[in-house]
């Protein structure tokens, strides 16, 4: 197995960290946006690329995050103090909660699979967008303006995330933290089971997993992550409108993940940057026709390159325990212990230990 992905991943993050040294403040603002979109792309890469849940409504969570952030920052949620930092936490939690409820509705009982699941998520995104457009309290069609930035007054008096460098470092830190967390998740046995669900749900259920619960939890983590990126988006732009919660935004997130490579977190993240960059270049060159070109690129990638443009570039080596050469090295010491514990005996499950209680 090649180590290419390890080097490219390290180079990617180092380059992102060095960026403020070489680009102008105005460009830094653009790069922070790309990082924030990248977080949303990673959230979809988790549930779609790993769990196989093709969700057309990822902007639902992104939008919930953005609106909760905006409303909390402005002190518009009754009983909750106006605070941008509190808003960031609340936004993430709200996204996770919405995903949790949606997950229970979608994955239990008459569980929806494949295209049916996708169709319901499209409908949900469209409905919520209409809803946001018509709800005056949250700004209706015009959205909400002048959203509070995140304050860094503790570090430097008067400093906040509206300052380009501070804003960029906030986005970078958030993106890196999300990457590390999701990557740890994907590389743990939890991730292996998630990929198992993508391959064959019934088979995984027959091994003893509560499939609905696993999908719901994956959905919940993805929802929280998308909401975090929505919240950062609201702070960065200082503006939210119903467009952030609807179908168009959902499709964009989907395109980023698919073009970059949905099975590799960093590829999906970089996919957001690549697509957004090309959009900017193309719309300068050919005006509104850029959408047509992006659409064609999307179709070509989905058909011809199921792993995306960057999947191979950023694919990390599998964890040691899942590699033939990785295990043989330290087998000997494990083996004695394993033999002592008579591992071939099928173990009787202890009745009290069924943890998820379903």
């Amino acid at each position, binding site marked *: *197995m090649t180590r290419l992905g390890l080097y490219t991943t390290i180079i990617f993050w180092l380059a992102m960290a060095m960026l403020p040294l070489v680009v102008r403040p105005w460009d830094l603002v653009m790069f922070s946006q790309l990082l924030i979109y990248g977080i949303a792309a990673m959230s979809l890469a988790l549930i779609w690329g790993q769990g196989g849940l093709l969700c057309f409504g990822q902007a639902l969570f992104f939008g919930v995050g953005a609106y909760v952030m905006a409303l909390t920052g402005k002190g518009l949620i009754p009983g909750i103090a106006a605070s941008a930092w509190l808003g960031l936490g609340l936004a993430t939690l709200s996204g996770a909660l919405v995903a949790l409820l949606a997950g229970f509705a979608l994955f239990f009982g008459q569980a929806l699979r494949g295209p049916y699941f996708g169709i319901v998520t499209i409908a949900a995104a469209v409905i919520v967008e209409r809803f946001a457009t018509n709800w005056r309290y949250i700004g209706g069609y015009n959205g909400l303006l002048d959203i509070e930035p995140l304050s860094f007054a503790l570090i430097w008096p008067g400093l906040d995330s509206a300052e380009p460098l501070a804003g960029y470092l906030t986005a970078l830190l958030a993106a890196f933290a999300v990457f590390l967390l999701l990557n740890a*998740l994907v590389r*743990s*046995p*939890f991730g*292996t*089971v998630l*990929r*198992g669900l*993508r*391959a*064959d749900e*019934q*088979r*995984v*259920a*027959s*091994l*003893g*997993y*509560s*499939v609905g*619960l*696993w999908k719901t*939890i994956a959905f919940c983590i993805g929802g929280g992550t998308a909401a975090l990126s929505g919240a950062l988006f609201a702070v960065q732009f200082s503006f939210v409108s119903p467009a952030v919660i609807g179908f168009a935004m959902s499709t964009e997130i989907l395109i980023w993940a698919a073009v970059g490579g949905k099975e590799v977190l960093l590829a999906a993240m970089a996919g957001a940057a690549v697509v957004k960059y090309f959009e900017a270049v193309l719309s300068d060159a050919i005006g509104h026709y850029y959408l047509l070109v992006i659409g064609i690129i999307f179709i070509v990638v989905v058909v011809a390159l199921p792993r995306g443009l960057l999947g191979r570039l950023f694919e990390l080596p*599998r964890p040691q*325990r*899942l*590699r*033939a050469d990785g*295990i*043989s090295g330290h*087998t000997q010491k*494990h*083996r004695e*212990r*394993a033999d002592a514990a008579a*591992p*071939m*005996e*099928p*173990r*009787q*499950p*202890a009745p009290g*230990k*069924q*943890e*998820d209680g*379903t």
Partner: protein
Amino acid sequence: MLLEISDLSKRFGGIRALRGVDLTLGGGEVKCIIGPNGCGKSTLFNILTGVLRPDEGKVIFDGQRIDGLAAHKISRLGIGRKFQVPGILSELTVLENIEVASTARATLGGLWSTLFSGGDGSVYRRHLMDADLWKYADQPASELPHGIKQRLEILMLVARGSRLLLLDEPTAGMTASETNATIQLINEINAETGAAILVIEHDMSFVRSIGRPVAAMIRGRIVREGDYDDIQADPEVRSAYLGERA
């Protein structure tokens, strides 16, 4: 008795797939169920694994009634099933496949603990080596030869720690030498882990080679139990299964 099935019936509309099946299996026992297509073998397995609920009758596994329980709960009690079509996770590598199974054993399907524990890899490495699968360890399961896929699936049940293995036509589509290797694997697993194994087959040569007790199933009922020679000599079995007149 590890498994006691009594008077099990299942109806699909007007079709009576099972009409009062009685069958028992002791701990560590290996038994084959033979029968022509449509005799209800797969329906029986679907009930045993919680995919279907029976209309009548009951299934007792290790002293506990399991008919009507959810599939993942039955699996956690220690019943593992090998599907007729290889039920491996095709996009995952051989080691990942084994990890999904061994994690289920180590964590009993609990969510939180799977973040940290995937079961002991060295144990499964030995299983893979014993079954001649090690050279495929890093390959996606979809790229394996057919016989190896079937063996991988059986090994997943072992890694899962199942005490009762239900094998649905484990040698379907196999060459003679692959069939022999599978018989050897079944015997080894039975000897080493003490797991009871119930095999559905309609390949008579498999049933003869494995040399274990046989139950003949015809039109939703067990009509005869005995060894291979008894079954082969039984007129009712011959007429239904081998197409001869009684």
